[in-house]
């Protein structure tokens, strides 16, 4: 069953995406939404440290990460990614329940490509991916 996404994005749907969240249900939701968008190559990690290891093993076209995770938060993970010469250009969307202005500003300063506040809908995810990956 196809979801009514409207105009197709001019994106590379073959690009691998890394979804990072310590709640498996949230990974599953994002994976389903990405699948409906046309992305099939979705990997997952349960915290920043595990995600960094995956990023160093394989090239990803987009990272979608939660903030509040242990032991390494999404914020720390983002800073590691931006500090790494090989990884620093990877588009990075923060998807989080952290909904204070301070968090948004900190994420932007740390180099987040975009920021989605939970709970979010499919259209918001689509819009942010388009904005970040270039429609």
């Amino acid at each position, binding site marked *: *069953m*196809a979801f009514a996404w409207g105009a197709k994005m001019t994106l590379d749907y073959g690009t691998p995406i890394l979804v990072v969240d310590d709640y498996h249900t949230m990974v599953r939701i994002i994976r389903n939404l990405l*699948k409906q968008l046309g992305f099939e190559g979705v990997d997952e990690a349960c915290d920043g440290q595990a995600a960094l290891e995956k990023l160093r093993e394989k090239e990803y076209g987009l990272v979608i990460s939660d903030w509040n995770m242990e032991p390494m938060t999404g914020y720390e993970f983002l800073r590691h990614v931006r500090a790494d010469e090989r990884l620093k250009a990877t588009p990075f969307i923060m998807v989080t*329940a*952290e*909904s*204070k*202005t301070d968090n948004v500003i900190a994420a932007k300063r740390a180099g987040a490509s975009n920021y989605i*506040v939970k709970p979010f809908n499919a259209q*918001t995810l689509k819009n942010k991916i388009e904005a970040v990956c270039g429609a």
Partner: protein
Amino acid sequence: MRRLADLLRRGAARNARELTGSETRRSGSGPDGRSGQQAERDRLQQLAREIDQVATYVGRLKREIGALKVGEAYSKRLPGTVSDLKGVHSATKGAVENIMAAAEAILDRDASAPGYSAFVAERALAIVQACSFEDLAGQRLDRALDGLLDLERRLERFAKAVKIADAPELFDRTAIMRDVRREVLLVEGPQDAGDAIEQTEVDKLFR
């Protein structure tokens, strides 16, 4: 404690009697000796009054500790609350699993395949049934909330009755590290509706 106060009072009374007797026997007793004994008697009486006050406070403290019903809280109330909250967590997880499975099955199905409508209807019904968890979870949450409010009332009554100020915080390494982590890494978790920033505001900050 009351007994100690009585002993002190009796001591003060004996002191007074001796003072009076010695005055009768030796009318030439000097003013310094008499006033010294009187001061001693006053001190004993003051001490007895203070011990009485402490005894009254300790008695009240005991009654209020009893009213806290700590045994009942630990044996019934708190375990019941924990059990209800765990039950809600478990029911929510189960419902999410069922709803997700049904939704994924629909999304994966070819809409042009024969029997598609019946398939979707069956899965939709499964989703509707899974949502019944909300009723049971709601009742469990209400019960847990009642338990917590009851404990809050008992503690509030106790704090008012014994008029005790909060003690300075004890050194707790785990709590300190948790607070530092929260502050440095900006980890707060979900905000209440009025406090949370809207997606449109986030978007403005990212422009």
